[in-house]
């Protein structure tokens, strides 16, 4: 946390988003974009970041961040199944939603290398 108080309007102008920035973010988010999409999204996302510049108009000083309307606390209970129906049925139904399932496990292509 910074100790100095930020003065409203004192922040230097933000560098605009580039298509390289957005390509990097898309990669992190596991999304593939065409060149046309990349150009469109870059402009649109940059406009939202312009909107975010409005946040600099407020003196946030040493105000702490809020992640949640209440302070989050752990809620403990006994470790017993709370679902109203049979655990075995539940397992089969959950597995049934899997795109590819084998021997009661979700199956994916190789994590390292490529499938032959």
């Amino acid at each position, binding site marked *: 946390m910074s100790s100095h108080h930020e003065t409203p309007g004192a922040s230097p102008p933000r560098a605009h988003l580039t298509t390289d920035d957005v390509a990097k*973010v898309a990669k992190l988010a596991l999304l593939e974009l065409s060149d046309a999409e990349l150009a469109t999204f870059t402009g649109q996302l940059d406009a939202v970041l312009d909107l975010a510049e409005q*946040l600099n108009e407020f003196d946030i000083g040493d105000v702490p961040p809020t992640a949640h*309307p209440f302070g989050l606390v752990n809620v403990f209970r006994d470790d017993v199944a709370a679902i109203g129906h049979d655990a075995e049925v539940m397992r089969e139904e959950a597995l*049934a939603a899997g795109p590819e399932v084998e021997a009661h496990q979700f199956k994916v292509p190789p994590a390292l290398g490529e499938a032959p």
Partner: protein
Amino acid sequence: MTTPAPAEAESVLAIAEAVRAGERSAVDVLDVHLARITASDDQIHAFNTVTDGDARERAAEIDAAVAAGETVGPLAGVPIALKDNMCTRGVPTTCSSKILEHWVPPYDATVVERLAGAGAVIVGKTNLDEFAMGSSTENSAFGPTRNPLDTSRVPGGSSGGSAAAVAAGFAAASLGSDTGGSIRQPAALCGLVGMKPTYGAVSRYGLVAFASSLDQIGPFTRTVAESAAIYDVIAGPDQRDSTSIPQDHISVTAALDQGIDGLRIGVITELSGRGNDAFEPQVVEATVAAAEALSAAGAKVEDVSIPTAVAGLSAYYMIAPAEASSNLARYDGVRYGLRKPGPNTASMMAASRTAGFGDEVKRRIMLGTYALSAGYYDAFYGKAQRIRTLMIREFGRVYENFDVLLSPTSPCVAFEFGAKADPLTMYYNDVCTIPSNLTGQPAMSVPFGTGAHGLPVGVQVLAPMLGEPVMYRVAAALEGMAP
């Protein structure tokens, strides 16, 4: 065009009373509503799925229970529609996204269990902006919902299908979810009452997560009393939601007739729309008229300034996408949902997400990923979280001197399809509704007169944490004085 406004006999309260007394069968009530769906939902597209088979069985069970003299719940035989982001065991829950198009949850959301326990009959799952991201329902992967009051216009969003289902008489009431205004804004645009409860008042268990610190489930109804009746059923603590408020729910129905004499009501200057070209003049005037009516009825009404309220929009479009980028990371083609093939796991995941998500969802995931990334976290997400603290403090101070606050719900009445194609223009629809999500406080929209093209205008009543009883009192008063 579509069905006429349903008669008094179709209200949640009238249906439940008649069914409980054995004067009307739940099956008959259901058939009336299903007939309307069959006749005109091809024009409206309120529903993604109509659960007519399950609904008939459920209605017959209720009629049998009534005939056997058994106790039936307070919503006996009431047909209710659910936004398609609430899990229903054995019934597809799509979030209007291709990525969940064929997903069938193995469990019910807590709100679904509570409605069933109260005797309600679930008629179907309603259309929404994909993953509840939008303000017009145009972002649905399955096509938009049309506003039953004017089918050339949007119903609002993201809970547009739930709003349209009630406005068209397809269901007596419905549930939506509200992350930045997604219940209140469509309620305003469809001439309904829409309520976002205090964060934690209604369990989120089984609500597909968009922005977990902002999401809340609430009702759409035609009247304030019906809204209270539904809210009284769905509210209350739930062990399965760690953010659920652990204290017993206090009935809001009991508060409805307490009047407003002596209440202190503030009109939020920054959200009033006065002197702001982005607001339609009739919308601004409706809030002024509502304030004058409340004053004449015995409340003390004055303007109040909340400077950070205008920063809500900016803070929200950092916080909500940040949370969404994390929540939507689970859609990777492994355990459920769409899978597109790829030579390795990472390429399979990217192919699945690229094919499964629409543009608005992609925009928000990328925005959130950017706002959370190294080097930008403090400047965007961190700053937005601090503004959130300032807002909570400012609203807290204001509520030391006021019981409730007022503003317009939406800057405009229902707009035409494609009118707000630019994302920022669309985002601005939520400028008045977002602050209550960031603070966690309750707020509701009540119809108050008409604006451009004779379309309904909503006035928003905001209240402090767990201030639903006083909020409903003011809403009931406004409803009684609406032009």
